[in-house]
């Protein structure tokens, strides 16, 4: 099949765009990404303002009994430091980001999961959702963080608490997370339902569905 490049692209003389050279860190940067020193803020809506007195985290759906934690209860769960690389589908990657929070293994240990549960929908204050296979959240692959770089997580970056799933594109790391719903079927979330890949593995460049 003959593939024809339909667009004769006009090249802007002397325009280089964002620096692409990762140097000796190149092996840690997924394909098509560039390294950033900053921490860009991306959002689909206003930053939720959630007072800690009313904040809560729930695990619901295919569990024997749903669980709810208050802020004090949730942050009393066993927490640890995490240093991970993160990649956003908008092409930036940030290495060695430092967080503190609780492993999803410890969160989910508090519920008895129904064997039919295969998928999770993460739900956030403000209405954002994202979906993941349950297996992507286990075995220390994911955590809920309330500290970034040694300080309380700022609202712009998802505070009071956000989900972090470093092995998938950052849109899966739901900011302002308020709960997890365990499901038998997969329910595409906010971006997955509009052209983004259902799983989002940066190392396989799983950015979009159906391109």
């Amino acid at each position, binding site marked *: 099949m003959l593939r024809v490049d339909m667009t004769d*692209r*006009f*090249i802007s*003389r*002397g325009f280089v*765009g964002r620096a692409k050279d990762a140097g000796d860190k190149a092996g840690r940067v997924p394909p098509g990404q560039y390294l950033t020193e900053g921490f860009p803020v991306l959002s689909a809506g206003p930053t939720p303002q959630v007072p800690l007195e009313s904040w809560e985290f729930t695990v619901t759906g295919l569990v024997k009994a749903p669980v709810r934690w208050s802020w004090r209860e949730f942050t009393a769960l066993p927490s640890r430091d995490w240093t991970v690389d993160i990649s956003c589908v908008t092409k930036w990657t940030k290495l060695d980001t430092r967080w503190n929070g609780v492993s999803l293994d410890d969160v989910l240990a508090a519920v008895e999961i129904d064997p039919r549960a295969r998928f999770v929908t993460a739900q956030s204050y403000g209405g954002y959702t994202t979906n993941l296979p349950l297996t992507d959240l286990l075995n220390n692959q994911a955590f809920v963080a309330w500290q970034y770089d040694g300080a309380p997580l700022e609202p712009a970056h998802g505070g009071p608490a956000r989900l972090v799933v470093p092995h998938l594109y950052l849109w899966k790391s739901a900011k302002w997370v308020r709960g997890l719903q365990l499901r038998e079927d997969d329910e595409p979330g906010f971006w997955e339902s509009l052209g983004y890949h259902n799983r989002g593995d940066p190392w396989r460049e799983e950015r979009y569905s159906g391109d």
Partner: protein
Amino acid sequence: MPEPLAWQISTVTAIRAETPEVSSFTLKLPSWRAHRAGQHYDVRLTALDGYQAQRSYSIASPPSRTGEVDLTIEKIADGEVSPYFHDTLQVGDRVEVRGPIGGYFVWEPALGGPLLLVAGGSGVVPLMAMLRERAAADAKPPAVLLHSSRTFEDVIYRDELATLADGDAGLRVIQTLTRSQPPGWTGYDRRIDRPMLAEAIAAAGASPLVYICGPTLLVEAAANGLVELGVPPAQVRTERFGPTS
């Protein structure tokens, strides 16, 4: 109905410094179309590897100047497109653009007035297009421009605004310099606040058409302030520039 927009390759025919951080770029357009004051052009840069960056810049020139437009652009230090305009682009270079765009944040004399324009920094660009359009019109509604800049040297179109106001009793320009003021400065010296907005409303007259343009936080504060002072929300149009000014 006008045809859908298409990208076209414009040629830079002039570059003029307005302030230390702001320059105006004259682009000659093969498919020029008369625009309305307040509209903008989208600009797209493409690198050799296919990487693209796109931004919108308001048109500064009046539509009476056919075949070309002026885009007045502030250099944002950590920006992607504005540094290219300031540091790399030369007269004779070509730039891919699309426009004119915008049907909401526009003014033409037929819409009448009075006009109350509020500008923060480079937000003055589309409002200047409106004032230039108004200056060329037969019937000029009363107009007030409340203009916030950092320092005297940063005031874009400073001399032209002074000339316009001097020659026109129906135009009032209220300036505020938020960071530093020159000796003998008689304007305001702080961020736009309620008393300034109240003075602007009083100068504009009953029920003005309001256009506010600049950094997002300034725009919101001004819009909220004007509505609280009694301007009907439907008469307030905003163009937020985002977090950088």
